[in-house]
């Protein structure tokens, strides 16, 4: 009984080690699997992974409309005060007051790309972009306003 378990454990160990060696051996002999990007050389044809997080942006459509309602969920979700939502009140055609964003200020220099603001947003107004060449000479240029000037909220987004 003991001997059977002893021999079985040896076979299991050899088998599991062989599985690991087969995997690394496969990678060794299949160079097409290499995922290294030789960045400055292939700047034009660079292929970033789908979930790469470079900075927060707010997509606008052709009519210069965004989906942000100014609910400040992103501001509350941000762990280090990267996002500041400045709201204003629009007058709707019916004469009602409606909350909207004046500016959505985004401090790239504080951002850790944690993605919590994008997850928190109830109306999918902000997304992570794949840009990453962020270096500038003046720190103030890293403070960005995400909504375009003169933009307004898309129809039907509450």
């Amino acid at each position, binding site marked *: 009984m003991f001997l059977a378990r002893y021999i079985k454990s040896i076979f299991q160990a050899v088998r599991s080690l062989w599985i690991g*060696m087969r*995997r690394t*051996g496969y990678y*060794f002999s299949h*160079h097409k699997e290499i*995922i*290294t990007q030789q960045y400055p050389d292939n700047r034009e044809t660079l292929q970033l992974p789908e979930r790469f997080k470079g900075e927060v942006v707010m997509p606008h459509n052709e009519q210069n409309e965004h989906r942000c309602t100014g609910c400040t969920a992103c501001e509350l979700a941000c762990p280090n005060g990267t996002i500041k939502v400045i709201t204003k009140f629009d007058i709707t055609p019916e004469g009602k007051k409606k909350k909207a964003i004046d500016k959505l200020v985004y401090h790239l220099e504080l951002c850790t790309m944690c993605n919590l603001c994008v997850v928190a947003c109830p109306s999918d107004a902000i997304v992570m972009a794949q840009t990453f060449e962020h270096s500038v000479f003046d720190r103030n240029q890293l403070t960005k306003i995400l909504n375009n000037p003169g933009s307004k909220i898309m129809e039907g987004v509450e």
Partner: protein
Amino acid sequence: MFSLSGITTALHDWLSGRFSEAWVMLIEMLLAGIAVISFFAILGLVLVLMERKVSAWMQIRLGPNRVGPKGMLQSFADTLKLLVKEGMTPNGADKLLFNMAPVMAMVIAMLLMAPIAFAKDFQLWDINIGVLYISAVSSLSVISILMAGWASNNKYSLLGAMRSGAQIVSYELSAGLAILTIVVLSGSLNMNDIVMAQENGWWIFKGHIPVIIAFVIFIIAVTAETNRAPFDLAEAESELTAGFHTEYSGMKFALFFLAEYVNVFIVCAIGATLFLGGWMPFHIGNWDGFNRVMDFIPSSIWFLGKTFLLIFLIMWFRWSFPRLRIDQLLNLEWKYLLPISMVNILLVAAIAILGWHF
């Protein structure tokens, strides 16, 4: 046909014609020393580059590819960097032992080079107890590690050195028993006799399953003896920063690094000699045409090819397996490898006495 022994014989004849016997001896010793040192340097450069490329490809990376064509000069650049770095000695260290340890590691690695048969009739020292000499001297390498660990006056170094001591003392046993199986089969401790005994087939083919088991045990034990992953507890960079060579920098570190690779080469060379027939070409029974073609390849190429195959195997282990804990390490030796190799050597002795091998 190209052969290394032809070169040495021609050189010997040329020297004998010009100088007296004592001078010939001295000059030849000097030349052998230079040859060994330059072989070490080349070996270090080649193996470091090989390890970096192998590790990169196994981890889906590219590896060094900037210095020289396809990154082939990377290890030259690294050596240059290490040469110009400052060789520091910490204040609290034992200066003599600290500076002696890397030299000691190197000298022991050099001593091991003596009885290895690199090609047909090409050997520094044909000694009748070659295998015994190698297993005796290779256990000395733990002294340099203990020396470095103790003299550094650093807790990481000392821990690494002590682990390495426990490890080498245990794994020496099963490595010795694995070597002994081949000594039992070929009936000689002489490296050349062992190679000649494999003229009609390598021991790994002739000796049935017991020799294959001995080969596996030998490879595991020498991986542990040379302190390489998955048995790199002496270095263990994630636990002990760098273990016994934490305090070393510059050329002193480079000597340790070089000694590690040279040790890997030597244990692989011994493995190739004992189990894979040394410089013997690969022959299949009665296929005369095939055997003729195999004979045409120089014996030095056969030897280096087999050695590098085993080096690749050890590198493959390093980049596939996770590191063992110290208790797992000692369990593996005392509960698995040692009992198995003891039973195994009994089997091999029976095979050798009854003449069951081919």
